[in-house]
């Protein structure tokens, strides 16, 4: 139980969620949804010291954060803003805007797929942010999670509400906190746009599961980019509800893993509930040394979602034959006038390309780096903002240059 005095609305929501949480199927190998995953993700989480150091990205001034969330402490940057609050402040406030949003998407998500860890999170959030934007943010908002050492589980709970016609970019990075179980509920109004970059750094020796549930109104845009650099055990659950016509979404992910038994596990469900919406999914995994990357992307098209355009591509580059890429694309379509495609491949480095580069004198490790960069470029191209894209690809290139020397 939370030791803070939570609001009446949260208390009653909590009681409701708690009472029906018994019906949520637990995580186990018996469940098809979890069968191939690394179940460390659900075991007792311990301290995590990992981080992506954003200072490396500071080449562009864009990355000066306007606001930093340090675990449960919140520091506002230069510009005081009422629109970003601590989640703990929100659930103790009887009149908070969050009252109409908190927990709704988590509950909705349970109807399609049992997600016991998301429910645990709703019942005892510890840290997190609640964002409500009614004006566009020109600069990206960088959220740099950092936690104090503490053995307790960290349930991070976030809420993002973007009002009609508002555009924002959020980059989340930093420590995975001690035990990382995060739930982020995202609501986009009409014509709203959110670019979300979720950057998970290397040396994440502790497990992390993050859920993002997103409700989108007509003509809104949601672009999500995930980066997983040598993550020990990350699992992502992304569920989108496209509820109005003309919605555009892009989900892209790059996983670069070369450590033994490391694991990245991306699960996406896109619900096309309205006509003329577009969704793209681009996954790229580069794997070496007994590691695993899982991609499960499902496109659901409701009967009324005519003229849906759904695209999914998941590709892996296996640098040696010990690593595994498990991919499960799924289509469930109930409308007749739709274009949906998916493709999945696993391949090794192209020998001819490598030979071409080497024959021009490019050193072997550099040539591999170039081919890796080329391989993941399709996913990076999903990032609209050129400055962020180039800062990130520089960061990744630098990182890959150490890839072969470990």
């Amino acid at each position, binding site marked *: 139980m939370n030791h803070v005095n939570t609001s009446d609305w949260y208390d009653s929501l909590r009681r409701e969620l708690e009472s029906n949480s018994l019906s949520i199927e637990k995580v186990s190998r018996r469940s098809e949804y979890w069968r191939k995953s690394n179940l460390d993700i659900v075991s007792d989480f311990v301290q995590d010291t990992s981080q992506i150091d954003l200072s490396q990205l500071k080449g562009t001034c864009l990355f000066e954060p306007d606001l930093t969330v340090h675990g449960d402490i919140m520091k506002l940057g230069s510009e005081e803003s009422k629109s970003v609050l601590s989640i703990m402040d929100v659930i103790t406030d009887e009149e908070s805007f969050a009252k109409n949003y908190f927990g709704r998407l988590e509950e909705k998500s349970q109807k399609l797929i049992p997600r016991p860890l998301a429910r645990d999170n709703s019942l005892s959030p510890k840290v997190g942010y609640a964002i409500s934007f009614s004006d566009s943010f020109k600069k990206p908002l960088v959220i740099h999670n950092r936690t104090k050492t503490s053995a307790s589980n960290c349930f991070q709970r976030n809420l993002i509400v973007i009002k009609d016609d508002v555009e924002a970019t959020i980059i989340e990075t930093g420590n995975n906190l001690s035990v990382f179980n995060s739930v982020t509920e995202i609501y986009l109004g009409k014509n709203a746009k959110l670019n979300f970059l979720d950057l998970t750094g290397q040396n994440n020796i502790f497990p992390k599961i993050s859920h993002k549930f997103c409700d989108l109104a007509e003509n809104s845009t949601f672009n999500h980019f995930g980066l997983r650099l040598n993550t020990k055990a990350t699992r992502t659950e992304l569920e989108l509800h496209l509820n109005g016509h003309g919605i555009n979404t892009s989900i892209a992910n790059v996983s670069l893993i070369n450590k033994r038994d490391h694991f990245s596990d991306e699960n996406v469900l896109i619900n096309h509930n309205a006509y003329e919406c577009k969704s793209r999914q681009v996954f790229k995994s580069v794997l070496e040394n007994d590691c695993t990357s899982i991609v499960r992307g499902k496109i659901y098209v409701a009967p009324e979602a005519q003229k849906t355009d759904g695209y999914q591509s998941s590709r892996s580059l296996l640098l040696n034959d010990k690593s595994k890429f498990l991919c499960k694309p799924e289509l469930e379509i109930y409308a007749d006038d739709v274009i949906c495609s998916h493709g999945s491949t696993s391949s090794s480095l192209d020998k001819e390309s490598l*030979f071409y580069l*080497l*024959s021009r*004198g*490019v050193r072997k490790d550099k040539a591999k780096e170039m081919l890796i960069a*080329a391989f993941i470029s399709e996913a990076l191209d999903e990032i609209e903002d050129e400055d962020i894209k180039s800062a990130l690809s520089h960061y990744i290139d630098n990182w890959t240059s150490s890839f072969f020397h470990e």
Partner: protein
Amino acid sequence: MLKIDNLKVSLEEEDKQIIKGLSLSINPGEVHAIMGPNGSGKSTLSSVLAGKDGYVVNNGTVKFDGSDLLDAEVEERAALGIFLAFQYPIEIPGVGNMNFLRTALNSQRKTRGQEELNAADFLKLVRSIAKDLEISDEMMKRPVNVGASGGEKKRNEILQMCLLEPRFVILDETDSGLDVDAMKLVSRGVNNFLSSSRSFLVITHYQRLLNYIVPDFVHIMVDGRIVKTGDKKLALHVEETGYKDFLQLGKEKH
């Protein structure tokens, strides 16, 4: 400069010999042409010299400047000054042409202990070469060879040659796929590049190229061997009568 002695090469994948005892000696400043029927092993020879995987050397030696070439890695051979203009240059999506060229040039310079070229000097250099070969800026900005026509790819190979300044150049059918004007352009590029310290091995099916790039020697290769060596008149002979006179020579040597 290059000395190949009784070289025998077979495929790694299957037990099939392609080069069947080939000897060839090339001195600095010389231009050698190799002609021969399809499948006689010309490209295989180029690949082996450049260091491509997939071949097994069963016999013989290849010396470059006196040391054993076959021991060197592909990128080391490039840094030594060996350059192969491919018969079929591949496309590499996602790798920018400029980035590739600069990395290649600077890697070679580094290996040779030279200073790396800065971005501005590099750009100037590439632009001037591209201009000579009439390669557009747009083409230079693309990923390596992506979307380029056959002839454009060949021109790109010559651009790389001019940029990297190798000492030993193999042109594997660089003329195939070039229009008349492009052929003149490329030949001019090659001729400007000739020097007393550089050597060329020009593989071609057409005597026409040899009017522009004049060879000191012409070799006829049949079934993995050089069966006849002469001067440029030999190329004219081939043009007129084909290879029928030489096929027999190939068999006799068995």
